[in-house]
């Protein structure tokens, strides 16, 4: 499988990365090189093989359903590029 320019632009939008026409052209070539490389997986017979979901044979640990953390709003917004009274500020999304 290979991707064309329109697909690259669509994927860039899905990934929320702005791309110029030049970027998209260059990426099309690069992505096709990588997709061409992974194409060889098609040779492998995977009939009846379970996909890997956990690399170590263990059941996922579950923690107690209790509050162990919190009351640190100051810490949470400390690194925000724009915040006000412990809220993150973003451009207006509702008219």
């Amino acid at each position: 499988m290979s991707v064309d320019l329109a697909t690259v632009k669509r994927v860039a939008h899905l990934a929320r990365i702005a791309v110029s026409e030049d970027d998209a052209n260059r990426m099309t070539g690069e992505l096709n090189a990588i997709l061409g490389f992974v194409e060889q997986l098609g040779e492998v017979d995977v009939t009846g093989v379970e996909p890997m979901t956990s690399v170590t044979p263990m059941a996922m640990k579950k923690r107690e359903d209790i509050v162990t953390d919190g009351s640190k709003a100051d810490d949470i917004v400390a690194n925000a590029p724009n915040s006000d009274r412990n809220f993150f500020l973003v451009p207006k999304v509702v008219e």
Partner: protein
Amino acid sequence: MTELTHLTIAEARDRLTARDITAVELTDAYLSAIDAANGALNAYVTVTPEKARAMAKASDERLAAGKAGALEGIPLGIKDLFGTEGVHTQACSHILDGFAPRYESTVTQNLWNDGAVMLGKLNMDEFAMGSSNESSYYGPVKNPWRATGSDADRVPGGSSGGSAAAVAAFLCAGATATDTGGSIRQPAAFTGTVGIKPTYGRCSRWGIVAFASSLDQAGPIARDVRDAAILLKSMASVDAKDTTSVNLPVPDYEKAIGQSLKGMKIGIPAEYRVEGMPEEIEALWRQGIAWLKDAGAEIVDISLPHTKYALPAYYIVAPAEASSNLARYDGVRYGLRVDGKDIADMYEQTRAAGFGQEVKRRIMIGTYVLSAGYYDAYYLRAQKVRTLIKRDFETAFHAGVDAILTPATPSSAFGIADQELAADPVKMYLNDIFTVTVNMAGLPGIAVPAGLDAKGLPLGLQLIGKPFEEETLFKTAHVIEQAAGRFTPPKWW
């Protein structure tokens, strides 16, 4: 003062315990060395001298009071991927501009609890995506090793290039690193240092910037096998904050060093003899086999038939997980924000300006293979192939093999800004051909220096072990180290 920086961790520990040197003296020696060398090597992206001196002073007090921890007063460098409270933590990306977390990663906290001293944060490929340290927002790291008679700069490998270069150039006693497809072992091999990626689950991933969560593992890069064992013992732990961290006691890895290899079976996988591999690497591999045989191990030929599919499967699984993990960088909660005409445009402009080319490439691949209609053909198939890769190793281990010996990399360190590699992303990916299988199967792997090539550059061998049998790797790697000797770059910086 400079000779203090040449002490191994084990040697420094003994002299600190004997009160023959102080932690402050040792830390100052490293800070001076960094000051003199970092302009040339670019291994550190941030140095924390005040913090280091304060930590060293506290270490001296504990040493005087007889309350020393296992790493008391040992100065370490920390890869920029580890969250360090109040200190630069940016995964060497522009998108995390100014980020200083309000928390400490579990691995680094374990080190500080044992008395270690932080010198600063180390350069790396952006978000640990790369094999040359050239994708860092802070510029490439120079390998302290150069070809004999040449002054051309070489890469230290990646993604833990700053860690490997700093250890090799005596700018820290040891360093933390992480390995998703070879990012500890390949730079260790390129710099004549020792690097171990432990079994998946051995070290907590909590507080480490995530790349591909099912593959990422932290481990140390050190100057010798014993130091790597000392560091891993402190780094490893079970952690309630990482559900994949394993509740098994952490052995005293150092005790494994010096144990006999008699009765051990070492597997040699036919599939690692790849086309176009330089004769020097073949010769190094044969030499490694001979050393282990001389030490009493039995050598057996094995087959790992799905080896060639590990790298293509990795380039589906890792970008898929990365595209999901890196969705959080949106210009809202931390790091860089670039304004746009509306919120969606703000996201797109922020991510376009904040991520470098390699990171964008991987996010795009990941987004594509997970998108509607392609999931089964790419992602699901890759995860099935991953099951087969793991099964290959299990078959070998069930047949009685204790560890597997392979080359660590298909070449020695290449030049910075290599045109051929820059032109073809897949060519750069092939650097991880011998290391990536280990991540796909969640196994432990160690890279140990084994010789120099004709250009005078270090080459490493890799040992792969059974899950949670890091001790086997340490004792076997130590035998190689004893036979090969240690390698130190001539100082030019």
